[in-house]
């Protein structure tokens, strides 16, 4: 890959790291939120639901700005995190936070859709066999929503790889620290004739995401083959 400069290589690996951690951290929280939204009713449910969707609804710049105010060096949460040595401002962790938050609604929506389509009687069957709530969740619900998990994680990862507006507004663009691929692409495009280097980066980021996509498709098909067969219909 000698055709990528060192800074560009840095951007690629940083983007991967950011997207990976963003997705990894968003997943358990997203799963919990999706489950709660799909199954429970409680006061403030619509509030939580609105909150989850906010990053999708707000222009990314605004999300970034809010993150900056809250998690920035002067922000309430930012100072708290800094105090315990977990500061995110102007670090790659901040980029991951921004990316994770931007991908969150996509993740939650896909998970929720799957959870809602699970036949709850299967979970009841597991309960009568002695499985606790947690165990039922792990051994029945989770495998059954695997297609949704794959979709959600993929959407979240792809969004995290492509996220630009919120990231740059929150953690700016420090080469090697917070300069992700989209920032690099943006920078390249600012210069006349910058299309060629930009396209190289685009191809780079696109290949990574498409690779993730194809992996997920492959995985999903294997899962479907396993679960499926549903009697007689696949061949028709």
């Amino acid at each position, binding site marked *: 890959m000698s055709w990528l400069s060192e800074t560009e290589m840095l951007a690629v690996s940083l983007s991967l790291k950011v997207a990976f951690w963003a997705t990894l951290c968003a997943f358990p929280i997203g799963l919990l939120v999706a489950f709660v939204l799909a199954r429970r009713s409680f006061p403030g449910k619509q509030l939580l639901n609105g909150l989850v969707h906010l990053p999708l609804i707000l222009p990314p710049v605004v999300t970034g700005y809010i993150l900056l105010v809250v998690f920035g060096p002067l922000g309430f949460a930012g100072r708290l995190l800094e105090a315990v040595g977990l500061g995110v401002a102007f670090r790659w962790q901040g980029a991951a936070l921004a990316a994770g938050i931007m991908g969150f609604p996509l993740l939650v929506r896909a998970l929720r859709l799957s959870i809602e389509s699970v036949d709850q009687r299967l979970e009841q*069957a597991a309960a009568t066999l*002695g*499985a606790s709530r947690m165990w039922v969740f792990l051994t029945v619900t989770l495998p059954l929503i695997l297609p949704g998990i794959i979709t959600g994680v993929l959407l979240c990862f792809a969004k995290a790889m492509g996220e630009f507006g919120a990231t740059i507004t929150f953690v700016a663009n420090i080469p090697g620290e917070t300069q992700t691929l989209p920032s690099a692409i943006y920078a390249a495009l600012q210069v006349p004739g910058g299309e060629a280097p930009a396209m190289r980066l685009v191809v780079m980021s696109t290949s990574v995401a498409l690779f993730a996509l194809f992996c997920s498709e492959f995985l999903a098909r294997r899962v479907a083959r396993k679960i499926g067969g549903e009697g007689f219909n696949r061949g028709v």
Partner: protein
Amino acid sequence: MVFEVELRHRQGAFDLDASFAAPAGVTVLFGRSGSGKSTVIKSVAGLLPPDQGRIALGGRVVFDRQRGVNIPPHKRRVGYVFQDGLLFPHLNVRQNLKYGQRFAPRHTRFEGFDKIVHMLGLDALLDRFPGQLSGGEKQRVAIGRALLSGPEVLLADEPLSALDDPRKAEILPYFERMRDELQIPILYVSHSPDEVARLATTIVVLERGKILRTGPADDVLADADVTPVGIRGAGALIRAAVVSHHEDGLTELVAGGQTLFVPKVSGRIGAQLRLRVAAHDVVIALSRPEGLSTLNIVPAQIQSVRAGDGPAVLLKLKTPAGDLLARVTKRSAQALALVQGTACYAVIKSVSIDPFDVNVTAEKHPLPPISKG
């Protein structure tokens, strides 16, 4: 009492109001479609908290609306065989079967995975997924899965309705052995007279959400007034002991000093049996008939004659072998002047006794063994 159930529940336009208590053994919930059988069994399993009531299993209160008790399903230790199987689609047959095993407390855990697999004819299916099974195969796996979770109480919602007769005949004994050897109480929903007669210790008859009759199976089945299993299903249970197995394929029994021949049964000599004699299989003769292809002829006295709407009357007979029911046409009853007190003979064809309806109730060495603990 193992099952103590008191329920009041309303769903849509349907009102359930059912209270019954039942001892160990098999309690059959009997009733027609929509009478509320599944609703009762789901309440017991903890899958549907009823509006009102109290449920205790072997003295353990699992639900009490007033005291706010509602033990979650997975702590009730009930094995549930669902009406429609509900296998886990993402697990293969082996994994489905083993699912509950991990939760079985060690002392109640069945060791008999292979045996149960074999008995249910699942050997060749272990690596299949539920989507690749026929309807009956699915239900057999569901039964195995519940058996292997080592439950303290088994709930079965029409577990055999998707099975053919030979399979039914193969699986029914396992319910009996759960009842007799493992002493696991079973609450069993059925609308099959055969199954009721075969399995029931206690019968609870439901109609439109109300309990029509409940009591020991012998009483309910022999009660000419209530024929819960439908008039065709009326019959009495008699108790007998195995005397010998003859070479021609018949087993000789003795009941109250009377010799009875039935198609070969598996009990050892001396074993106690329960057999069901259907009312419509009993012919009444005024004198001991000769030249008849029927081996079992028992002297009897008519205790009561009860006429219904149909063309038949139901006779309750006192015989040395035990109480019997006989169903004859009004016309015959009149022609033969059958009234209370008439002395007569009950003629029972050997081949009429369904192997389904013979039930070994006590035997020393059961085979194949299901080990518990």
